Structure formats: structure tokens, C-alpha cells
């Protein structure tokens, strides 16, 4: 089931919800909250959700966006799901490294690599 959203493009394939961001900048408080709500609904839609967030369109984010991702990660884990991130550009990956969040999240260079690693059902 797809949720209509102006911030996310969601595609379900092979048991994985693949999400791309429609906004190039994940900065604004209001849109971050809406993105978080949208992703929450996706996580809550089924137990053990397998979620891939593809950052290929994103060229900016803020600490508020990182906070949203941290909260999402917790929620996915609580529901025995899997969350992976992919296609993060160099500048944004640096933000993950600086905040050490590259240790918290499972980050892959490409969506293909991330998809290949999801557990088979």
C-alpha cells in the first residue's frame, strides 16, 4: 500500500520499502516532521519492515533531520525491522562521520548493495 506524500517517493519491491526523498534539502523543521510521520506510518504498517532510505537526491540536511533518522532507527529496531541508508553524497556522509552516526546506521554506497544485504524472507 502506498501512502501519498509530497516529501517521499515510496516503492515496494521484494519485501523492501524503498524510499527516496523528493526534497533536495532535509532542513526545515516542518518538512522533517512530516517526513518522520510518513516514515513512522511505513514502519508501523507491518512488523519487521525492511526499509531502504536512498539519499541520492539529497544535498543538504540538518541536525534535526539526523534526530528524525535516529528516532526512526529506534522504532524500526523495536519492531524487529531493518533500516539501511544508501547513496549518501560525500558532504552528507561527512556529517554522519562527524556525528559518529555512521556507526549507528547501516550505510551502503548504492541501493543495489543495500538491497542485496537484506535478510531473505
Amino acid at each position, binding site marked *: 500500500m502506498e501512502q501519498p506524500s509530497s516529501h517521499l517517493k515510496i516503492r515496494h519491491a521484494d519485501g523492501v520499502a524503498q524510499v527516496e526523498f523528493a526534497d533536495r534539502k532535509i*532542513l*526545515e*523543521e*516542518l518538512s522533517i516532521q512530516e517526513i518522520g510521520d510518513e516514515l513512522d506510518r511505513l514502519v508501523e504498517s507491518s512488523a519487521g519492515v525492511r526499509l531502504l532510505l536512498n539519499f541520492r537526491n539529497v544535498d*543538504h540536511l*540538518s*541536525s*534535526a533531520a*539526523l*534526530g*528524525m533518522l*535516529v*528516532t526512526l*532507527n*529506534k522504532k524500526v529496531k523495536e519492531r524487529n525491522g531493518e533500516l539501511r541508508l544508501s547513496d549518501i553524497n560525500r*558532504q552528507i556522509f*561527512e*556529517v554522519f562521520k*562527524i*556525528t*559518529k*552516526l555512521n*556507526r*549507528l546506521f547501516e550505510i551502503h554506497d548504492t541501493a543495489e548493495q543495500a538491497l542485496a544485504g537484506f535478510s531473505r524472507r
Partner: protein
Amino acid sequence: MIVHAPPQLRLGSLDMAELVVPNDLRSAKAPESLILGELERNGYDGDCIFGLKLALEEAMTNAVKHGNRGDPAKHITVRYRITPDQVVIMVADEGTGFAPECVPDPTSDENLERPNGRGIMLMQCYMSRVCYNACGNEVWLVKDRTDPPNPGWESRLTEG
């Protein structure tokens, strides 16, 4: 306007442009786009602009949400001076301030899963120098052009 920079920055008196905007995140965009335009005109590269944009975004968000606590009756004052060699930005709110040294390190293991507390650290990593006034309701961001994109991070790594 002529402004005395905090003594620890050793910048003396600076001729800075000033903008005062209402305390909401949408209004906070106006100084951001003016400053970004100035950075491009002064030939700053993409990495430098990325860091300044991030630091400024964090400073503005902190001022609106934490400093002024979202109070629509309050204002944010932004002063800036951008030359080809250096960027100096001051963001002040009308709140009671805070003690930056009391904000816990968001990169320590016990804080890694906390949703908040990364903004100040990101400002410090991407800027050459960051300082606050005595009560903490005014933050100064300085970026020297000759510095690498995230000089604060590199010094953190060197320190251990």
C-alpha cells in the same frame, strides 16, 4: 554598523550588516539566503558553503526554538561580514541564554541514540571558531577561507 566582536575572537571592531527577523523558521530563511548569495559572490567553494549553510541553519534553529522558545513576539538579530578571506556571522536571540559547555557530547556512546544535541557540535566542526557571549544568547561563527571545510572536526580528531 560597527560592532565589537567578542575579545576571544581577536577581530576587534567590525563593520557588519544587520538584519532583524521575526522569531519563526520561515522568516529565518531571509538572512540565510542573503548570506549564501554573498558567499557565492565572494567565490567560496561548495564545501565551504555547505559547512556555513549547515552552521547557520543550526544557529538559526537554536535561536528560534531554544533561545526564543518559539515565542512569535520575539526576534532574531543576525549580523554578518563577508569578505573574500573570512566570514563572520553573529546570531542573537532574546532568550535568557544557556551554558554551551553543559551540552553533553552527542558522539559519546551513551548519547549516540539521542535525537537532539548535535547542532552545536556541528557548528563547532564546520567553523574555524565559534563563541558565545557571557549569557549564551548570542553565537558568533567565524570561518577563515584558508581553513579546510571542517577545521573543528579535524582538531577534535587530533585531540583524541
